[in-house]
């Protein structure tokens, strides 16, 4: 089911490059108006909920209680207030950062090494590995394995610890990440690998010197995928931890349901905005490579 992506040439650019006879301005066709109207509607539907939570996080408390969408008074103090008055919050943020960073580092390294071995080292037995990884993606592993994962963590004395979460987290998107890297490594011609090997490069130098620069867009995709998975993970975090101090940000947010003081809605909304900002900023920065990585082969399914 491989769908190779060959970006086609851009039609308008071709037209523009022919200098002869500038085309007369035609009226915009109806179909284009309808198309953009529909797309703008979808874009608004996506943006408005996020704008709403952003506004909620800077509403004054009385405005929040009246539910008015555009507040009469803005209040930007909620961010600081939440950080100071929700006692575990800085700890929860730190927990999320630690767990996510470790997960992303482990999974990315594992996926790059595995993708490389599966494509360019003609690993004996790779069909078995591939088969298992594929099977795990069509099996509800996350749900079915939960009871035994809890047991493993208990036996390793990792229950109710933050860093213990890293182990199950690293596997959440591992199969997908290996597949993405495999897809990207397959775009590198085998002759390149052969040439490097003939020149005396061993498997490691070949990966490090020759291949890595060529697969960096794929690595961006893998990093983003794993960041999103680990940063927001809820099921394992809520099952494997009990105490508020060891929990991660999503568990704290999921249990918040409004209230007084530090738990007033605008303050929870401020925590929410803090929780989603890193991902969106990372996306804004890495967007170009991410899109390229997707096109190069990450979307090969």
């Amino acid at each position: 089911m491989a769908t190779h992506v060959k970006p086609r040439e851009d039609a308008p650019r071709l037209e523009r490059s022919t200098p002869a006879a500038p085309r007369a301005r035609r009226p915009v066709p109806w179909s284009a108006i309808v198309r953009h109207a529909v797309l703008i509607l979808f874009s608004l539907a996506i943006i408005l909920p996020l704008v709403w939570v952003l506004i909620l996080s800077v509403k004054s408390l009385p405005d929040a209680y009246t539910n008015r969408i555009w507040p009469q008074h803005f209040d930007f103090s909620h961010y600081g207030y939440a950080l100071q008055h929700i006692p575990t919050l800085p700890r929860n943020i730190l927990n999320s950062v630690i767990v996510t960073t470790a997960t992303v580092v482990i999974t990315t390294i594992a996926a790059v090494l595995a993708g490389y071995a599966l494509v360019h080292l003609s690993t004996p037995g790779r069909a078995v590995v591939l088969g298992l990884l594929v099977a795990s993606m069509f099996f509800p592993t996350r749900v079915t394995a939960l009871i035994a994962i809890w047991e493993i963590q208990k036996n390793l004395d990792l229950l109710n610890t933050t860093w213990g979460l890293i182990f199950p987290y690293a596997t959440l998107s591992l199969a997908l990440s290996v597949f993405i890297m495999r897809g990207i490594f397959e775009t590198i011609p085998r002759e390149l690998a052969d040439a490097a090997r003939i020149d005396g490069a061993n498997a490691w130098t070949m990966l490090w010197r020759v291949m890595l620069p060529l697969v960096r867009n794929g690595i961006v995709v893998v990093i983003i995928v794993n960041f999103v998975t680990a940063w927001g993970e809820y099921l394992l975090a809520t099952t494997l931890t009990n105490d508020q101090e060891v929990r991660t940000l999503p568990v704290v947010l999921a249990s918040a349901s409004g209230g007084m003081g530090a738990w007033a809605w605008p303050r929870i909304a401020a925590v929410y905005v803090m929780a989603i900002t890193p991902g969106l900023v990372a996306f804004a920065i890495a967007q170009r490579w991410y899109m390229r990585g997707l096109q190069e082969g990450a979307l090969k399914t």
Partner: protein
Amino acid sequence: MARVATRSQRATAADAWSLAGRLVTSWAFLLPTLIFFLGWQLYPVIRVLWLSFTDYHYLRTDAPVHWVWFQNYADAFRDPLVWRGLLRAALFTALFLPGMIFIPMVVAVLVDRVRNPKLATIYRVILLIPSMIPGPLIFVLWKWLYSYNIGPINYLLVDVLGLFTLRNAPRWLGDPTLVFPSLAVMEWWWGLGYHTMFFLAGLATIPRELYDAARVDGANEWRIFWHITFPRLQPILLVLVVLRFGTAMAVIDEYLIMGGFNRALPTYTWTVYMWDLGFQLGDWNQSYAAAVGWIGALAMLIVVAGLFWLFRSRD
């Protein structure tokens, strides 16, 4: 000539290296993946299967554990909560799938027609924003959007449009008939951009000349979509159907965050029941929970296998 000779000599040396060291080296590269995959995915799934054939209750610390063969499965087949849980998951899947596949397909076709490269990028980036927010945080946001107290949706319906009063305003997540459609809309919102990217990747492989030729022949947009675009998107469509079918049948975070353990709500499916049995109810009958987990997985696998068979025979 001499150069060629040394090359081939080096090549045989390389061959020797690859024969001797290939096994060790290449498996060394796979080792990190294998440790995590075997330790926290494959072993747990098998361990759960083993547990499901015993009478293990976690909180019965003094009782010996017996091998009971299919007793848990026999119990599960008589348990109305298991059946209801599977049916509810199937119902949600039926609601969830069409919108998760066809809305992105339509949006992809629309985005693909946008000729202005800047605008096309802007649409893509906006559509991808939700995929940069982790699932559980999406669910938290929509729990608030649907909220009876602070939700802007009910604020619009009650205070701005006056369609409802506070008394009869829809309880999006509390009403058993509304909760699945509400969750499905949320999932569509979340998955729209990501799935649109899959279809866009497929559309990019269709040469524009095909469209132009069809237009010259007088085909209208609908016929062009049906005869040129759709057949070429079909492989992607089938893969997405299988993948998302799996997602929808095994949904759990949404249900825990939105519905909790309220058995009257349809969100109490086999996944939530499994969690309830294993970590909350009575003396934590984890062996029975394990059986429920495997029954859910098997039910899913059977349908996935059926889908694969169905789609394969058509190609």
